[in-house]
């Protein structure tokens, strides 16, 4: 039974740039409130991190309920919601924030505000959060709390004069953070007697318990045995268990307004539990759902093909298992003349794509070829009909196309001003339109509109290398706009290789075509016959390279005792070749595909 009055609950999240100390602070808060013993601490935190890694896919929201007896003598329930920090999961972040009333803004006192922090803090402000600035790592010699405090006020526009100065690493002033939570954050509001309204914050699949749903109760009560309904999905389930995370799961009889906890209702897949959906009582439903629900839509697509064609079923199976725990990624079977059978997969963003690929290879031991990521284009035909294009290979005949629209993003880049020049050059090369350019001390903040197409194409790597890692970058989807786009086909000995075709702006097409041909020339080993590699737009060749025939490849000695071995070698080679990507008589090694698909113009 939970009978904590609303006035004694505080729900908060922590906003921080990577490495600014969010996890360490969370650990300290758990430790300071006695959630775990010192010994459990190490074990538990490790477990949690392992879990986080395992569930890394959507980088799920984590939550823990802390009991803190404040200086006023009262005991408060502090619910910490650890939110994902990356833009790919912006919607998930916004739902996590909607479950809280306030945020701790953790800034490294030696580094200052970064782009990622900025995007998240704006989201928190939008969610009407009370923001408590925390200056971390003040024990470091390089810490400049005054400068960073000023920067927070200038860039973010919030009062930082009473920022809490801490060192999460040494445990300095953790008490100050806890007191600030109690005294500066507002308690949640809610009506315990109203019909149930709970926000579905997140869900994940547990192999023993089925789907675990993380909820924030707005009104009413959520009890064991209750029949609940997902308002957007329409599905009805019976609640088996309700409880808190401390951080271990701890069942209770019911959750009241203002509480954050979990439910478990024998649900088989997270696809039935849309983040942002409203959970209500099936018999006494709420009149209207909580605002802001939207299903997650993939914005980046790529083909995933098994290196070994025999692994196709294993890939299907693995994707199915991943989707159990991540409803935000989509997949459908696809076949390619070049790569055989595989899947076209949709992701929330590039990080999401990388995580899924990484998990498939690490956890499911699959060797994959991923085609170049493509954004979703809107193709309008001459009859005015719009179709969404996820795969360059499916681009219709240009004659049938009236116009093509591509998605644009709004990107925020923060960079020390001595690297600003190269960042601006990069953005301009990528068809960027500058929206804003401001300075805070020696750090510049550039806001650009960029075609997403240009960002999925090696933008991060270029940004990192051109600024020696000093730039931070974040983006949000902006709008669709008409663009002069063409499909570039890559031909090997006159045969198009479907998996290498890509869509680019006409102004960049030739340079990219040339770059990919040159790269392939370096990567494809010499073979028996010479190989022509061409890039073409429609029937027009825009770039060409030739790989000469290999000059010598013959066994010096071959006598009576060698025949069996040589024949078997030949047979083994032929068997191996079935797994190679053959184009006519040309074999393209996996490494060439991978590198060609990563090419930078």
């Amino acid at each position, binding site marked *: 039974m939970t009978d904590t009055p609303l006035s004694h609950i505080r729900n908060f999240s922590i906003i921080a740039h990577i490495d600014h100390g969010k996890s360490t602070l969370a650990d300290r808060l758990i430790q300071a409130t006695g959630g775990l013993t010192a010994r459990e601490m190490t074990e538990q935190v490790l477990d949690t991190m392992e879990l986080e890694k395992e569930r890394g896919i959507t980088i799920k929201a984590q939550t823990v309920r802390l009991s803190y007896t404040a200086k006023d003598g009262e005991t408060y329930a502090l619910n910490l919601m650890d939110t994902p920090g990356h833009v790919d999961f912006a919607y998930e972040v916004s739902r996590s924030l909607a479950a809280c009333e306030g945020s701790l803004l953790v800034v490294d006192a030696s580094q200052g505000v970064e782009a990622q922090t900025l995007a998240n803090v704006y989201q928190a402000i939008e969610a009407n959060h009370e923001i408590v600035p925390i200056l971390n790592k003040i024990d470091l010699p390089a810490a400049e709390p005054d400068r960073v405090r000023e920067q927070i006020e200038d860039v973010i526009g919030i009062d930082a004069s009473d920022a809490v100065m801490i060192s999460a690493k040494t445990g300095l002033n953790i008490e100050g953070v806890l007191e600030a939570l109690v005294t500066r954050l507002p308690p949640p509001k809610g009506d315990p007697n109203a019909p149930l309204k709970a926000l579905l914050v997140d869900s994940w699949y547990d192999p023993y318990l089925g789907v675990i749903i993380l909820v924030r109760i707005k009104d009413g009560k959520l009890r064991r045995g209750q029949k609940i309904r997902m308002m957007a999905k329409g599905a009805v389930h019976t609640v088996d268990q309700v409880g808190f995370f401390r951080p271990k799961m701890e069942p209770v009889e019911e959750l009241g307004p203002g509480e954050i906890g979990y439910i478990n209702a024998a649900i088989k897949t997270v696809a039935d539990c849309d983040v942002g959906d409203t959970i209500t009582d099936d018999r006494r439903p709420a009149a209207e759902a909580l605002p802001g629900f939207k299903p997650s839509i993939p914005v980046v697509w790529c083909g995933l093909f098994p290196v070994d064609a025999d692994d196709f079923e294993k890939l299907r199976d693995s994707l199915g298992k991943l989707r159990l725990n991540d409803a935000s990624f989509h997949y459908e079977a696809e076949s390619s003349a070049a790569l055989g059978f595989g899947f076209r997969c949709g992701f929330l963003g590039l990080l999401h794509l990388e995580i899924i690929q990484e998990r498939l290879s690490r956890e499911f031991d699959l060797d994959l070829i991923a085609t170049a990521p493509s954004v979703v284009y809107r193709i309008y035909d001459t009859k005015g009909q719009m179709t969404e294009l996820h795969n360059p290979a499916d681009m219709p005949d240009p004659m049938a196309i009236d116009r093509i629209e591509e998605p644009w993003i709004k990107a925020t880049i923060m960079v020390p001003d001595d690297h600003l020049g190269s960042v601006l050059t990069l953005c301009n090369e990528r068809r960027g339109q500058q929206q804003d350019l401001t300075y805070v001390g020696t750090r510049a903040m550039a806001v650009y509109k960029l075609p997403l197409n240009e960002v999925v194409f090696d933008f991060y790597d270029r940004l990192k290398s051109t600024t020696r890692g000093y730039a931070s970058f974040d983006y949000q989807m902006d709008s669709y706009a008409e663009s002069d786009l063409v499909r570039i086909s890559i031909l090997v000995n006159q045969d198009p290789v479907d998996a290498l075709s890509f869509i680019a702006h006409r102004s960049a097409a030739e340079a990219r075509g040339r770059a990919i041909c040159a790269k392939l020339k370096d990567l494809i080993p010499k073979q*028996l*016959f010479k190989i022509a590699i061409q890039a073409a737009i429609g029937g027009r060749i825009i770039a060409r390279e030739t790989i000469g025939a*290999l000059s010598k490849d013959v066994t*010096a000695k071959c006598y009576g005792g060698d*025949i069996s071995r040589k024949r078997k070698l*030949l047979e083994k080679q032929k068997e191996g070749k079935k797994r190679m990507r053959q184009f006519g008589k040309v074999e393209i090694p996996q490494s060439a595909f991978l590198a060609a698909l990563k090419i930078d113009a």
Partner: protein
Amino acid sequence: MEPLALYIHWPFCLAKCPYCDFNSHVRAEVPQARFRAALIRELEWEAARLGRRSLRSIFFGGGTPSLMEPETVGALIAEARRLFVPADDLEITLEANPTSIEAGRFGGYRDAGVNRVSIGVQSLDEEALRMLGRQHSAPQAIAALEIGRRIFPRLSFDLIYARPGQTEAAWRAELRRALDLAADHLSLYQLTIEPGTAFEALHRRGDIVLPDEDTAAILYEATAEEAGRFGLAPYEISNYAKPGSESRHNLAYWQYGDYAGIGPGAHGRLSFPAASGDRLVATRRHRAPEIWAERVEASGHGSGADVEVTTEERAREMLLMGLRLTAGIPARRFETRTGLALADAVDPRTLAMAIEAGYLVITDDRLIATAEGRLRLDALLGALVR
């Protein structure tokens, strides 16, 4: 019935060469009498199932057959002549190392019936001989060649080139000196790193670096040019001879004829006429000398089970051997020997492309790999063979 080529393996060496992956074993003491008896016994066993076929060649290989006592060689030759029908021009070759002790036995071998010697010179460069782990010096090699030429009507020797760091000029100079010493035949091999050899370990560590593919091609072409100037024409990838002096025994391998292999680790290909089911089998003896000898003593042979060679396998084997020859493969012979038409044994698209690229030609009902094609034969076979 196919005429027979007979291979006799003497598995012992004084030292193991670091590049060699042949079935050779270093023994302090070699029981000559025991191995002589075992080889004769296995030869009789093999002859019993082959019948009195025409015998075209005998080849003593190894190991180091020049460590055999001439009496052993003589006994085996006499036995082979008794068991088969020797051709008038029966070619009998013995492989020899050019040490003075071995050269001292050359007369004995000639008296035993050997009419061709193949000497493992490998290099005329002292440093290269040390690198190759050879037991002889360049002057010893030259002396052995001179003795060999006086004693035997036919003589060949081996050289290994495309060695680490070897320049084209250095190789041409060495080869010219060798050609001055040559008789009617030379085997000129590019150094190859074979699995399981001492060189393989060095190569993997980067302590041996072979010339790159382009350099190897240049060296290969230089070799043919120099040899040609002395009247030795290439007739196989690594073999050069005066016209008519080609190794008849080795031609049996490349023409995919029948050959019987006697002795530890020896391989054979034996065909049996239609009456016996038109079979072609691959035979193989146990590799370890002592185990092989025990088996022969117990049951008359040291052979494992014969393996039937299927039509497709015959076709692959005949292609991979036959295209090594400058004369190529006669289509009629291919079909009778493998049971598959040549046109059905190759990938038509590769064939067309290879002809267009100048790697293959079809003339007089033969499929021939050109010089350009032979230079890339392994890659060509990989694409051509079905």
